[in-house]
């Protein structure tokens, strides 16, 4: 190897932490990432990255699957996902590179395992009866009051499957709500709810501008259709859920 080539390879190795490195480099990097993962990540994501106390299984994560050399994973580690309870971490680039390598290494190892892994397969969620689910949808569940199999739910089984579909069915996280604010002047402003606590409400108006008010200064109402999903949680039997899943999976 000429010194020029060596220099080029060194540059590549420094410049990116995924693409141009050999398998041995990657496995050395993953080894350095292991203790860091145990310290900082394992409580939530599990020691093997396959899910822990309350964090998702990273070996099946779509984000990890789409990641190349840390381009997707590193920003999430740096910025966190506060809305999902993931804190941000302040780590150096080499530490991030090692963590990313470890996560990819765990993904490879997990994919080589047969059957021994925690997680939920699409096949696990096939115990329901589609006809009973349809009856529940149109009857006791009152789903048809807001949803239609030929309208908003047309093709839903093509867009979501397995656990993702079930989670969205039970409670659609991040569903939009509408805020209507009545100002002391009598003027009414409506928009997408953007913030709400005991003391402040905020919305995005039709021009996507953010506006907020002190709750003690205005009258306001919130229309959150997803609340109906939360109300149903106390009413479902497990069979209802499995049957509804079976029915939704027919909507292709």
């Amino acid at each position: 190897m000429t010194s020029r080539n060596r220099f080029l390879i060194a540059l590549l190795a420094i410049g990116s932490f995924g693409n141009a490195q050999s398998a041995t480099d990657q496995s050395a990097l993953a080894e350095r990432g292991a203790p860091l993962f145990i310290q900082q990540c394992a409580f939530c994501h599990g020691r093997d990255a396959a899910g822990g106390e309350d964090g998702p299984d990273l070996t099946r994560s779509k984000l990890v699957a789409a990641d190349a050399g840390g381009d997707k994973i590193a920003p999430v580690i740096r910025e966190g996902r506060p809305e999902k309870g993931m804190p941000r971490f302040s780590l150096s680039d080499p530490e991030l590179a090692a963590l990313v390598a470890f996560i990819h290494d765990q993904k490879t190892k997990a994919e080589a395992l047969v059957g021994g892994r925690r997680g939920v397969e699409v096949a696990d969620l096939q115990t329901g009866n589609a006809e009973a689910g349809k009856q529940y949808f149109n009857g006791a569940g009152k789903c048809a009051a807001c949803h239609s199999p030929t309208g908003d739910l047309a093709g839903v089984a093509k867009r979501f499957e397995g656990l993702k579909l079930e989670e969205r069915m039970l409670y659609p996280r991040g569903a939009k709500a509408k805020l209507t604010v009545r100002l002391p002047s009598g003027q009414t402003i409506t928009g997408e709810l953007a913030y709400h606590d005991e003391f402040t409400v905020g919305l995005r108006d039709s021009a996507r501008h953010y506006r907020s008010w002190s709750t003690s200064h205005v009258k306001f109402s919130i229309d959150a259709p997803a609340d109906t999903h939360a109300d149903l949680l106390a009413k479902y039997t497990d069979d209802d859920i499995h049957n509804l899943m079976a029915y939704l999976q027919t909507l292709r």
Partner: protein
Amino acid sequence: MTRLIQFVFASSVVAAQGVDPTILLNPPADSWPAYHGDYSGRRHSALTQITPQNVAQLGLAWAFQTGQVQQIKCSPLLVDGILYITVTDNVWAVDARSGHQLWHYTYPPNKGFHIGSRGVSMYKDWLYFMTPDAHLICLNASDGTVRWNVIVADSQKGYWTTMSPLIVRNHVIVGVSGDFDNLTGFLKSVDPETGKTQWRWDSTPPAGTPNATTGGMTWMTGTYDPSLNLIYWGTGNPTPVLNGKARPGDDLYTCSIVALNPDTGKLSWSFQPSPHDTHDWDAVETPVLVDANFGGKPRKMLMQTSRNGYFFVLDRTTGESLLTTTFGPVNWSIGVDKKGQPIPNPAKEPASDGRLIAPDEGGLTNYRSPSFDPKTGLFIVDAHPSYGIYFAKPADGSFGWAGADYGVWGKAVLDAIDYQTGKIRWSHELGPNGAGAGVLTTDSGLIFTGDAAGNVLALRTSDGKTLWHSGAGSQMQSSPITYELDGRQYVVTSAGGVLFSWSLPEH
């Protein structure tokens, strides 16, 4: 008494430094010398300077920046005008009048689980600090130098530690964490001077015992009744966590409240909030000790709002159940047995096609402290009405987690429970998902806690009305404390990596 003798006596009191274990029996107003503030775990203060009438004027006295991304999860100690706070691997001593740092101790890099640190404990001039790799460190409180360092459990096997030890006379009582492996939970009493083990109590049989459970971790600080000479401790969930078939029966002493002799570690009685748990509901929430009437009769009671959604009132002399009731949505049990323990519904064990369970894995409440207000008889708790789905199948095995579960929906509510009936007298909505803040009550009729959006709140105890708030920028992941210095009452809360000290304006 002559003036001279009076003077000598007074100055010897002032000069006395640290925590003589006898002050833990009746902590002075200018101290918060242990995790719960006192042995009862009520997190209630007799201080009355800040009142419902003047709390609207509460303002920031100072803030202390740890400069860490890690969140503060500790309950600070206040001794001799100095606050001691922690995050994992770090301890600070901070002047409680000004908020400036006196010293900062950093534990060397280690491979333990970095989940959180719930604070230090103090005996005489020594601080006791537990580390991610399950060591107990004794530090000199005056400068943060290490006196000794002993191993409590083998972190290579999967143990870690986070808790603030309970000091009873010359016992430093420490517990452990670790439910990613099938490990035996235990409590250990350590000599405060030498670090030598005095006794050990195992909550479960040795790992590998056929058909027996492991687990029962002891990761929260217990409480103590000096007159009965009993410590009260909550134990964690069994392992494997979601697969109950591998460990038939009740799985004693997991998800239990146990009463032990602090001198010997001998078990006096036990009560099990979650027999045969399959949902990760540690029963480690503070066992709160209350002396009051129950059913018209004076009783020495123990109360717990448990992670599994039940509120328990026990006679703490015998462990006899006085009241068992739920304090939010609970769908996993089929009733209560004659001992007052919930009976789990086998149909609600995790299954391959999923079971919808209330509450979720985080539970209807978690480790941050509740508070008992003696005047109103209200038990105030940060509650998390919630649902999750639980899965387990044979392929998930029988080691560690052995399944999967996912939160579906939840919200945060502060509930005021009437301890005599278990009825919720009022509820104060705290926002979506969860708040997770601890609760402090004071004799003036105030509650201090936090909401899901990161506001610090002062509420009126009688009806839960908000009287004051301040945005702290992040949720309170700890429990508030209060103390009086130079005639001024301070309330200390945390948010993210910042500690805030609140007080009324100085005139």
